[in-house]
């Protein structure tokens, strides 16, 4: 089976570097799946979850924005921040979600609602990935 080389780097560390069979990410124009031999592409990413398929395994990560670059030899994700499912602090994400929802509901004029919306998206993505991991662990 053909594979593609995936590297996920943040300014602070390399989060992931391995040969995988498929990557599914949230681009600015919608969700996109990258298979081996994809055409060269450069896109911005929305905050959201990232699915990596390797053989029969599926890995989930959370990305809070960044860039995805498909090159002939590899796929590189330059993430603003990236966490593996097991690194997510669910309580913090829940608190962030409540905070963002509160701001969006009351809409205080001094706070940027776009920033709150982005924060909401980030926390929801974190919660989603963390829950999926918990469910799967329960099933096993």
């Amino acid at each position: 089976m053909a594979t593609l080389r995936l590297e996920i780097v943040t300014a602070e560390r390399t989060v992931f570097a391995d040969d995988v069979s498929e990557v599914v990410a949230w681009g600015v124009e919608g969700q996109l799946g990258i298979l081996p031999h994809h055409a060269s592409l450069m896109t911005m990413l929305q905050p959201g979850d990232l699915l990596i398929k390797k053989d029969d395994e599926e890995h989930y990560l959370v990305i809070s924005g960044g860039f995805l670059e498909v090159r002939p030899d590899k796929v590189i994700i330059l993430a603003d921040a990236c966490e593996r499912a097991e690194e997510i602090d669910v309580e913090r994400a829940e608190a962030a979600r409540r905070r963002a929802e509160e701001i969006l509901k009351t809409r205080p004029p001094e706070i940027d609602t776009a920033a709150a919306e982005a924060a909401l998206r980030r926390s929801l993505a974190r919660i989603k990935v963390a829950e999926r991991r918990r469910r799967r662990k329960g099933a096993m």
Partner: protein
Amino acid sequence: MASVQVLRRRIRSVQGTQKICRAMEMIATAKMKRTQDQAMAGRPYAERISQIVADLAIHPQVDGKAHPLLQKREVNKIAIVHITTDRGLCGGLNANLNRLVANFILEQTIPATLITVGRKGRTFMLRNGQDIRAEFTGISDRPTLLETLPISRVVIDDYANGDVDLVYLAYPRFVTTMVQRPTIEVLLPVEPTEVPPIQRVEYIYEPDPGAVLDQLLPRFVEMQVYHAMLELIACEQSARMVAMRSASDNAKDLIEDLILTLNKVRQETITKEICDISGGAEALA
């Protein structure tokens, strides 16, 4: 000559200093490895982002104009981001950078404003009556990108508003544990590295090259500031380790000298006392 008592007190005091120096040396040694690793861990991101900026910068712009952060303007005012440590006792690290930047400002014919990071640089520049636009202190020795964002924010905003037309970044570059080189680089406008045509990849851009560049350039600047911070921390720890090692070695030499003097003084006193006693006994006989 000093009395036995004074010498003993002196020795104890130097021993105390030596202990402190040795402890600081050991702490710096332990932190040094970690800070060097951290500086290395940021390299892949830095390399990728400069490559992408280079790829994008050659792309023809939609409206025929270069991105504001790439545009070279007539220079009426410059800014220098001056990155130093908060704490001292790290040899000539801060002094070298301060001197380099001070000379650099003196050479300029255009007014310069400063954005200082770290207490040492701020104090120096204030004492010399320089214009300080913003100051940042208290950045931890395990800096995250988040901590350095306010610094890059000020820089990008000032540049975008046209308050400054050229921004330099001054920081000590980590060469080896023994060598740290004070460096001044151009931060803004962004100067993309040249890409040889063979390495160029034709990308499909989503949504379009301009939008990607809009997002990418501020990131690039943020990353450079963050990277300079990491270099500084790596320099600080290794400079401190080297400085503290030579300080504790000097303390050791000093203690040896003092002990020798102490023993001489002690022997002299004893000889004198014996002389006195035997002289007194003879006089009585």
